[in-house]
């Protein structure tokens, strides 16, 4: 098996993908890392090893705030999405009759296939002063003045939650379905009520899938520019918005790189935090 001839073939198969990933992912990242230690002087980049950008990120209140805002939004979104998606996946897996399950599942994730940009924008139509929610509530005389919902963190979180509830429902559903029904039966058989069955058996068994979903949510959410930009009304800026601002308005590449490196650092921390439950090959 361990013949040199065989291994050459194996290397030949792996090499293209490996080279691609190294050339267009690893090397660019390293270059960006190097660039993040350069600094702007006037409009020109001075390369070297200056920690200035990082110092600024962690000392300038407006930049530090971006970090905090991003983390707050991401954690909120992750928690809310999981709390909403779990029961939904549960109902589809165990309440909806088998033959309808696939259909209902497809329905729940159908809006995935609207354009991501348009989907955020469409929440403006729903949440706005003139949006359906306000119109409906006013028509029902629940409120007399329209309430302000768009251009706020609430809107950003809503837009995110919408997206991630779909994603998480899918992953949690898959997780629940692959669980042998005998686990729940065994627990009940041994005297566990519904709640105890869930707490002691179902939840621990679905935790890895749940954490994988949460990690994905975290990564996608904290790195997203579109949703806060469209729905947040610039009332607070997230890290990606600040990065885009460095690029778009100031042309400050080193600073943008430094912020991206910090973003990468947060993602790595999130990974380490959840690594216990993650299986990289299941992502």
């Amino acid at each position, binding site marked *: 098996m361990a013949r040199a001839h065989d291994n050459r073939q194996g290397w030949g198969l792996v090499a293209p993908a490996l080279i691609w990933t190294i050339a267009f992912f690893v090397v660019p990242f390293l270059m960006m890392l190097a660039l993040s230690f350069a600094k702007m002087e006037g409009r020109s980049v001075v390369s070297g090893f200056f920690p200035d950008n990082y110092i600024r990120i962690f000392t300038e209140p407006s930049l530090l705030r971006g970090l905090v805002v991003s983390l707050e939004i991401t954690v909120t979104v992750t928690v809310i999405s999981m709390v909403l998606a779990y029961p939904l996946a549960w109902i589809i897996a165990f309440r909806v009759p088998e033959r309808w399950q696939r259909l209902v599942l497809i329905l729940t994730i159908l809006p995935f296939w609207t354009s991501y940009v348009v989907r955020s924008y469409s929440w403006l139509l729903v949440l706005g002063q003139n949006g359906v929610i306000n119109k409906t509530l006013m028509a029902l005389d629940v409120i007399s003045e329209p309430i302000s919902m768009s251009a706020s963190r609430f809107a950003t979180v809503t837009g995110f939650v919408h997206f991630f509830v779909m994603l998480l429902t899918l992953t949690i559903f898959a997780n629940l379905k692959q669980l*042998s029904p*005998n*686990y729940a*039966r*065994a*627990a009940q058989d*041994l005297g*566990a009520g519904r709640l105890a069955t869930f707490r002691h058996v179902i939840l621990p068994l679905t935790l890895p899938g749940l954490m994988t979903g949460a990690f994905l949510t975290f990564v996608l959410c904290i790195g997203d520019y579109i949703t806060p930009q469209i729905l947040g009304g610039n009332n607070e800026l997230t890290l990606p918005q600040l990065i885009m601002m460095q690029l778009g308005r100031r042309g400050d590449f080193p600073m943008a790189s430094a912020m991206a490196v910090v973003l990468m650092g947060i993602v790595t921390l999130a990974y380490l935090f959840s690594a216990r439950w993650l299986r990289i090959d299941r992502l």
Partner: protein
Amino acid sequence: MTAALSIQSIDMTFGEVWALHAVDLEIEAGEFIVLLGPSGCGKTTLLSILGGFLQPTSGKVMIGGRDMTHVQPKDRPTTTMFQDYALFPHMSLIDNVGFGLRMRGVGKKARHRRAGELLALVGLPDAGHRRPHELSGGQRQRVALARALAVDPDVLLLDEPLGALDLKLRRQMQDELKAIQRRVGTTFIHVTHDQEEAMALADRIVVMNAGRIEDVGAPQHIYLQPRTLFSAAFMGEINRIDGQGTGEGLDTPLGRLPLAANGKTALLIRPEAIGGSGDLALGPAKLVDAAFFGTHHRCHYAPVAAPELRIVAHLPQSATPIEGSVTELYADHHVLIVEDR
């Protein structure tokens, strides 16, 4: 502890499918009952109804004299051992075995002591801290048994618990299962589709087919005196010769045999009952094929009277079958089954 069961005219349908059909069965306390039947015959369904995981479409389940048809699994005096064991992979063996006690509010210390005892009973005295995935198939099976026994059930339900094991281990676990059942005295209801396993374990075998009970009785009775063609064939290889009863005799392709039968009747003879001597003469036959099978030679005979027919006989180890030779065949045991249709 132990309890008797009474299953009263149970029907079970899934949509159009009749999974169980007018099933009646009385089980005594402490009996070892084996439900035997081919895949899809309704064994798991019946077991699930006893365990409370399914509600029968109609009929009643009495356990220990009380009607339990609509009682929740957690409130029944039954526990189930599942085919895939369903051990909780995130718990240690001690916690697995102690789970039922924990649900009953037993304190940690008492629970661990009892779980330890049960693990010792099934031969895993020092493995309490391990996780299920660190065990072999046979060891897992024992833990599942310990977990089921930990709550001291009146009735233990076992759904093909040995199905995943290899032959040798299966034999060994059969012996252990039987020994444990004798020790604890609990009523065991055991599902399998392996007739050897059924014979090795059962006080009584219940043969099922297509949702109905075909035959009930002690292993020897079912093997030697099957009530139906299905039951006869399912218990092991058998030669079937179709005939027409005339009152005094049975007309078969072998000629008229001196058997009292009326109407369309099947003559059934097991291969080991055929040989050079016996009380029923089958006439001359030619040996067309023989293979040594260790304990016996498996021989195919073509009767001279009906050369297209094949009769399988097991000749003793000491015989030296010669292919092509012609012998007079006799049967020393047989069964007649009148076909209804």
